[in-house]
């Protein structure tokens, strides 16, 4: 019987955050600190003829200016195709040309305007299909597309397959082929990007106050960029005002800030304006997906064949690697006998795409779940039934080698179908101004980390002090999601130490043990298991001493209220620790533990059990479409998710609602609008995130499958809630109107156009799907 786990606990440092006392990057002020500002290109594609910084340098208050010619650095990004400061050519509208450090932000911004750059404007390439043509010039001079993939503008390419495609095609009664277009959206963290850098020129050490989600990989990346030793770089994370994947990669402004600090000899801070945040922070990867799927006469799925062209932008960040996750959904979301997957990320003069909560999965799931509805329609089968008969099941080893040791897919589906009155709403005829509809979407995502780096582990150091206080030093990171709270809860559960006596230290690479970072919904799973491992060690230590002190033989201690108990024997925890410390042989009550999940690297064909466990979820979403304005309003969201086990109900529910809000925005309103590589809506009034009045009621039904790999049976949960949302909404809109949308967001204008003309226009704002191929 759990005392703590499974009961709602307030956020560990919630009081600091809600009272304005939490220190974010924006709140840091160091003595003599300068303010940095970055000059970005005026044109998305141009040659730089000359840069003249003399006027800017003579401005009072300017301390230093750097351009590409002043620095000795390496390219960044996992393909090393991205210069920190650009020279020769600029390739997208966020390109950094120069940076200034000045006494005030105002002076720095003014100095930026005084830098004179002469450009020779070039016609850029903004369409990946255009970029693939022979005649198109090479976009990224560091790209290795020609050697690696046979096309100079190919940045990255993935191929995967399992099963016998031709055989399965022959078995198919229905084959649906559709083309889906997914927009560029962004994280829109409420705190803009920020960094503060300080360089100690006595010992060559660099300290960065950075909002990174992956401090140890970041330390390595900064070191590579600046040609430094990683261990000389100390990364301190202030309170982070939103992550969602945006801070998974290191971006040019970060080494730039370090360079300014090194050159000026003073601390330097760079804070993005909101406009800069929209223009220069990463985005979700836009893509065109052509998906062909089939099923037999009974509705059993036969195959999936997919070809994806991704707009990589001018440089390569993590967006190009989203196929790792996408191919899992194509190969293994529902039972899929055969699958062929090809994905190409193509350089363009658009801004580069990074990672974003869901990591390609919202895009993949949108296409898969739309095709499923279409197959059911074609077959005359219920959309609920076709999903249920194909759903993943416990014990399944998929074509890709994912092993579902536990699986809540069917219970999740059944729950949302029942709770949403799915069958009834589906069957209700629709007339009048407001049309109601309901749609289903399911998803599969890693739930136990993902082995994409040589280690997917996390270290923990535990210390109980002489007064019975516990310090958890964890490699993992808090980005607002509540990982600290879950760790404290685990310690409370296991060691019986009250919350007030627990500290979590997790912000300093000089102090904390290694961890790969916050991503892949992994933190509670990996850091939780790491903590449990450390707790086991510290309990052994405590037990040994308590046995000695109480002269009793047992290893079956009960830890509660700061005490250790066995039958009539009991002793205070702090007393055990003091005896350990002050009596011979004089030991501190400290342990270290490193947890590496049991997951495996995939082989060269991308096969293998990549995660410690897998999360499953279904959503049934009810919408109302206003046929007068075209606006789609989400009325109700029913979400059921296999979370393994609920650790902190209030925290989990918060992840659900927050994810859904982003998912609804992705489905209906959010889009970065570019014209020839230039962002047209770089503000919160142009980029439409949901407001409080747009948020529907969320009904959440967790499914507990108790997966033994996770802490107390839990699975990762953070990304899942936004993954099937757009799919379910698109299906619901189709149910409401009898018209289907193949591109996101489903804007009011798209809806009205579809209602006004049965065949959508080819040109203009709308680029809809190609004609349907049915009954092959």
């Amino acid at each position, binding site marked *: 019987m759990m005392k703590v786990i499974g009961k709602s606990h*307030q956020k560990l440092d919630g009081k600091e955050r809600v009272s*304005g006392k939490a220190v*974010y990057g924006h709140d840091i002020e160091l003595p003599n600190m300068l303010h940095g500002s970055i000059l970005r290109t005026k044109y998305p594609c141009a040659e730089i003829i000359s840069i003249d910084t003399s006027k800017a340098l003579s401005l009072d208050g300017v301390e230093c200016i750097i351009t590409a010619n002043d620095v000795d650095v390496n390219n960044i990004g996992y393909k090393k195709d991205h210069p920190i400061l650009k020279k020769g050519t600029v390739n997208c509208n966020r390109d950094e040309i120069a940076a200034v450090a000045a006494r005030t932000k105002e002076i720095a911004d003014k100095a930026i305007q005084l830098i004179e750059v002469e450009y020779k404007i070039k016609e850029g390439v903004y369409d990946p299909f255009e970029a693939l043509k022979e005649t198109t010039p090479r976009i990224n001079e560091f790209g290795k597309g020609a050697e690696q993939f046979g096309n100079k503008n190919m940045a990255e390419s993935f191929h995967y397959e399992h099963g016998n495609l031709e055989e399965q095609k022959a078995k198919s009664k229905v084959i649906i082929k559709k083309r889906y277009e997914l927009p560029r959206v962004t994280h829109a963290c409420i705190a803009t990007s920020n960094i503060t850098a300080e360089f100690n020129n006595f010992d060559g050490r660099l300290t960065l106050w950075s909002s990174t989600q992956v401090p140890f990989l970041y330390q390595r990346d900064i070191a590579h960029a600046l040609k430094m030793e990683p261990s000389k770089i100390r990364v301190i994370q202030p309170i982070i005002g939103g992550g969602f994947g945006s801070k998974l990669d290191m971006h040019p402004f970060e080494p730039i800030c370090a360079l300014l600090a090194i050159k000026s000899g003073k601390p330097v801070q760079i804070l993005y304006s*909101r406009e800069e945040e929209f223009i220069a922070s990463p985005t979700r990867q836009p893509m065109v997906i052509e998906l062909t799927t089939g099923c037999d006469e009974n509705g059993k799925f036969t195959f999936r064949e997919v070809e994806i062209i991704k707009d990589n932008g001018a440089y390569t960040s993590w967006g190009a690697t989203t196929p790792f996750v996408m191919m899992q959904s194509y190969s293994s979301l529902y039972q899929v006998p055969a699958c062929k997957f090809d994905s190409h990320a193509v350089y363009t003069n658009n801004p580069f795409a990074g990672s974003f909560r869901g990591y390609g999965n919202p895009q993949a799931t949108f296409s898969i779940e739309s095709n499923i509805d279409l197959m059911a329609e074609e077959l005359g089968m219920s959309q609920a039934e076709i999903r249920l008969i194909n759903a993943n099941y416990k014990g399944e080893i998929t074509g890709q080698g994912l092993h579902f040791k536990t699986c809540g897919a069917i219970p999740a589906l059944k729950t949302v179908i029942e709770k949403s009155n799915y069958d009834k709403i589906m069957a209700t005829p629709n007339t009048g101004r407001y049309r109601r509809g309901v749609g289903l979407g399911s998803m599969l995502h890693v739930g136990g980390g993902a082995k994409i780096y040589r280690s997917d582990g996390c270290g923990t150091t535990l210390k109980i002090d002489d007064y019975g206080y516990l310090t958890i030093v964890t490699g993992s990171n808090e980005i607002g999601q509540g990982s600290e709270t879950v760790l404290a809860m685990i310690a409370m559960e296991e060691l019986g130490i009250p919350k007030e006596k627990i500290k979590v230290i997790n912000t300093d690479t000089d102090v904390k043990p290694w961890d790969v970072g916050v991503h892949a919904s992994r933190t509670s799973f990996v850091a939780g298991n790491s903590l449990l491992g450390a707790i086991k060690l510290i309990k052994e230590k405590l037990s040994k001493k308590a046995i000695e002190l109480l002269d009793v033989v047992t290893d079956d201690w009960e830890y509660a209220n700061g005490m250790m108990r066995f039958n009539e024997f009991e002793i205070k925890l702090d007393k055990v620790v003091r005896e350990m410390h002050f009596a011979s042989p004089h030991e501190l009550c400290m342990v270290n533990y490193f947890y590496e999940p049991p997951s495996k690297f995939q082989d060269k064909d991308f096969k293998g059990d990549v995660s410690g466990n897998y999360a499953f979820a279904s959503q049934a979403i009810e919408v109302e479409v206003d046929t007068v304005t075209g606006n789609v309003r989400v009325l109700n969201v029913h979400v059921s998710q296999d979370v393994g086990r609920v650790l902190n109900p*209030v925290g989990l529910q*918060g992840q659900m*609602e*927050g994810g859904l809000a*982003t998912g609804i925005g992705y489905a209906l309103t959010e889009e970065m609008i570019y014209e020839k590589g230039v962002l047209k809506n770089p503000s919160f009034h142009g980029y439409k995130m949901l407001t409080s009045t747009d948020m529907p009621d969320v009904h959440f039904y967790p499914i507990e499958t108790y997966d033994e790999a996770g802490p107390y049976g839990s699975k990762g949960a953070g990304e899942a809630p936004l993954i099937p949302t757009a799919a379910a909404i698109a299906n619901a809109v189709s149910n409401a109107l009898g018209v289907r949308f193949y591109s996101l967001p489903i804007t009011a204008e798209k809806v009205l156009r579809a209602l006004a003309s049965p065949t959508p226009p080819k040109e203009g704002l709308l680029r809809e799907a190609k004609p349907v191929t049915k009954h092959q």
Partner: protein
Amino acid sequence: MILTFKINGEWVTQEIKPSLLLIDLIRDVLQLKGTKPGCLEGECGACSVIVNGDAINSCMYLAINVDGKEVTTIEGLENNENPLHQVQEKMLEHGAVQCGFCSPGMVMTTKAYSDKCIAEGITPTREEVKKSLEGNLCRCTGYAKIIDAAEAVYK
């Protein structure tokens, strides 16, 4: 320009340049960092503070216009007996805080609205509570818990 105003219960006199924005007065001059700069264009509400009882965006407000007025920032909600205001307590209870960057603004907006409701003897509906928060963007929570918390304040 000389400015005299009340900040979190205390009168202060401060020399400022005329074009100074209230948010810069609060964060840079007075060093009250709890008021957050989210967009600096009046769209996100993270910088909300209360001026003479009304919630306003401090990024869109000239500092000189608080002359003679009473300004309350998030720091002003704390007193010796109660380190947290009821609005803050409810937000914590309901799990309304994730990254927390929007939280001070959410608190100040809700506080101003709840003061107004109490003064007028109104218990707002859930839709009215949602509307009261329309000027405060949040990317983490999906608002649901924030709305729950604000609703609990009025019960």
